C-alpha cells in the first residue's frame, strides 16, 4: 500500500508536467486553454465515481444495517462534493478566460450547480436528524435517489441542450477527437485522480471506524 502512495506521487507529478508542457495541436478558440481538460474532466469523473460509491454503500447499509456502511456512504459523498467544487472552480476559471466571465449560467454550469444543491441537501438532511439509525436509513435512501440524478446532470443534459461548453470527451457522434499524446496524458490523469480518490476514501473510512469504535466504547 505504501508503494502505491509513492507510485502515485511520481505518477501524478509526471502527469502534471506532461499536461502543462507537452505540446498540444492548435485547437480553434481554445489554444493552450484546452489543457484544462487534463484536470477538470478527471475531477468531474472522480466526483461521479464518488457519488456512485456513496449509492453502493447506501444500498449495502439498507441491506445489512451496519452503521459502518452509512459512514462509508457519507465519506464517499463528501469526497464527491469536494471534487464537484474543484471541477466547478477550475471550470469557472477557464470560463473567465474563454467566455469573459466566471459564471454565465451555461447549461453545464447550471447542471453542476443543481448537482451541488442536491448533495448540499444530503448533508443538511444528515445534520437535521439526531437518531443514528433514522439518519443512516434516510440518508442512504437519499444517497441512492441523488446518485440516480448524477448521470443525468453530468452526461445526459449537456448532450441534450445547446451549450457554449466544448464537446464532451466522447462527443455526440460517439467519437473521441484527441491525438494519441493528449489521450495518453488524459487517461493517465484519470487513473491518477482515481487512485488519489481511493486513497482519500480509505483515510476517511479509517477515521470513521475509529469514531465508531470510540462511540461504542463511550456508550
Amino acid at each position, binding site marked *: 500500500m505504501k508503494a502505491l*502512495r509513492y507510485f502515485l506521487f511520481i505518477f501524478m*507529478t509526471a502527469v502534471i*508536467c506532461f499536461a*502543462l508542457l507537452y505540446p498540444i495541436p492548435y485547437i480553434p478558440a481554445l489554444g493552450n486553454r484546452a489543457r484544462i481538460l487534463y484536470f477538470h474532466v478527471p475531477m468531474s469523473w472522480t466526483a461521479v465515481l464518488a457519488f456512485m460509491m456513496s449509492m453502493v454503500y447506501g444500498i449495502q447499509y439498507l441491506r445489512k444495517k451496519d452503521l459502518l456502511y452509512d459512514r462509508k456512504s457519507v465519506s464517499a459523498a463528501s469526497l464527491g462534493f469536494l471534487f464537484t467544487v474543484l471541477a466547478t472552480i477550475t471550470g469557472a476559471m477557464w470560463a473567465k478566460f474563454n467566455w469573459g466571465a466566471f459564471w454565465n449560467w451555461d447549461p453545464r454550469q447550471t447542471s453542476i450547480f443543481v448537482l451541488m444543491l442536491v448533495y448540499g441537501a444530503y448533508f443538511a438532511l444528515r445534520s437535521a436528524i439526531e437518531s443514528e439509525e433514522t439518519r443512516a436509513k434516510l440518508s442512504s435512501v437519499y444517497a441512492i435517489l441523488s446518485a440516480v440524478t448524477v448521470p443525468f446532470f453530468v452526461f445526459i443534459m449537456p448532450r441534450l441542450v445547446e451549450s457554449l461548453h466544448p464537446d464532451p470527451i466522447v462527443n455526440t457522434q460517439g467519437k473521441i477527437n484527441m491525438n494519441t499524446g493528449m489521450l495518453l496524458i488524459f487517461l493517465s490523469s484519470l487513473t491518477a485522480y482515481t487512485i488519489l480518490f481511493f486513497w*482519500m476514501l480509505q483515510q476517511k473510512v*479509517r*477515521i470513521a471506524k*475509529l469514531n465508531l469504535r470510540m462511540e461504542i466504547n463511550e456508550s
Partner: protein
Amino acid sequence: MTDFFASLSSYIVLAVTLIGWFSVFVFMMLTDRKISKLEKDK
C-alpha cells in the same frame, strides 16, 4: 520576447500546480501516519 513570457508563465503555472500537489501529498502522508498511530493506541 512574447515567447519568453509565454514559456515563463507556463513554468510558473507548472510550479504552482506542483507545489499544490506536493502539499496535498504531504498532508495525506501526515494524516496517514496520525491515523496509524491512533489505530495502534486503540
